[in-house]
């Protein structure tokens, strides 16, 4: 337990220091969303209708942004070797890194999303719902991305491969995330079913992601 907390704390501290990726995701999210009204024109009704989808797409891309360095830096400086020799099972250590990553990149996205909703003419109540769906869905994005990060650990330019590998797998999360947000805002479908599936996707990836990522890292040794 001590080792787990130590690892989470270290990764959060690294993300917050100079050169860490903590705020990069949130800034990228901000820029993507701010660009949208310029591209689409000042049609307020259109923006309000596709606002949740834009927010979700922005959050998806932003949460993958810093993910490629998740294991690559530890691999390059030898930390990964020592992490593997620690008392934690590799699956748990990998999950700890993902939790730290979500806390430093996923959570800020959710916090700033209501502000960004203003740019897209999404009303306040609807913004709360979108933030709620992001809260339920972004852990799935991080934990699915974890597998891609582990697979591309030893590759230079692994970020591109990561995006190609991971983005198709995140399609279900995107579909149900946007579906739940739209259901709550415009109806007429009920909010419950898509939101529940979104939560299920997060919980499933929470379990499967670390197992697959640890297997990928172990395989990379040979």
């Amino acid at each position: 337990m001590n080792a787990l907390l130590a690892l989470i704390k270290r990764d959060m501290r690294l993300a917050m220091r100079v050169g860490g990726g903590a705020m990069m995701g949130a800034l990228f999210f901000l820029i993507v969303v701010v660009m949208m009204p310029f591209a689409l024109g000042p049609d307020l009704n259109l923006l309000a209708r596709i606002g949740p989808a834009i927010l979700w797409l922005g959050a998806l891309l932003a949460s993958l942004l810093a993910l490629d360095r998740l294991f690559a830096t530890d691999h390059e400086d030898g930390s990964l070797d020592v992490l593997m020799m620690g008392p934690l099972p590799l699956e748990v250590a990998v999950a700890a890194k993902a939790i730290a990553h979500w806390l430093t990149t996923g959570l800020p996205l959710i916090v700033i999303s209501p502000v960004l909703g203003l740019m897209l003419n999404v009303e306040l109540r609807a913004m709360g719902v979108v933030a709620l769906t992001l809260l339920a869905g972004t852990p799935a994005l991080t934990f699915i991305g974890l597998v891609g990060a582990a697979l591309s650990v030893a590759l230079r330019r692994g970020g591109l491969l990561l995006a190609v590998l991971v983005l198709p797998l995140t399609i279900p999360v995107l579909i149900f995330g946007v579906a739940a947000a739209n259901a709550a805002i415009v109806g007429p479908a009920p909010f419950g079913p898509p939101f529940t599936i979104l939560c299920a996707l997060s919980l499933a990836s929470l379990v499967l992601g670390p197992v697959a990522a640890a297997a990928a890292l172990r395989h990379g040794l040979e």
Partner: protein
Amino acid sequence: MRLAADNLGCSRGGRTVFTGLSFSLSGGEAMIVTGRNGAGKSSLLRMIAGLVHIAAGQIELTGGDAEASTAEQAHYLGHHDALKPSLSVGENLGFWAQYLGGDAATVEPALEAVGLAPLSGLPAAYLSAGQRRRLSIARLIAVKRPLWLLDEPTSALDAPSQVRLAELMRVHLAGGGIIVAATHGPIGLEAPRQLRIGPGPA
């Protein structure tokens, strides 16, 4: 405590590096692994550390903690120093001490032992190669593990630091520990066992 390797074989990238390697070490013994570049010295250490797949044979550490794997009872000092440049010297060592199951109180004496205590608050980015090496060695002092796997431990160290490392290794051996070191030169231990991988003199 006893480390035994039986008929080990190693293959990397489809190429057989070595086969039929056997040795056995008991507590208080050190072994120097020599061989040409590419003979498999580093691979052997990484195999013992559980970081490289064992292609043939087996490695066993008996007489230690029966619950823990060999890797969990070993320290591996590789070519890389496992340090984060943006964390301070104290934070780097503090993290490894906590992660590997030591406690925070061991950090200060360990830094003292490698002569880095005055630099505790300095970000590791500003350390020289030799200082980084010493900080890496401090990890072995901060957390007690019986088996030390050292890959070129003296690289980048100046003469006084090499003497200090030799002293730390002697203390470790005197406490019943085992050391396996891959090296090209002497590392300051009296009469260590020798294991030569591959043919011919170094």
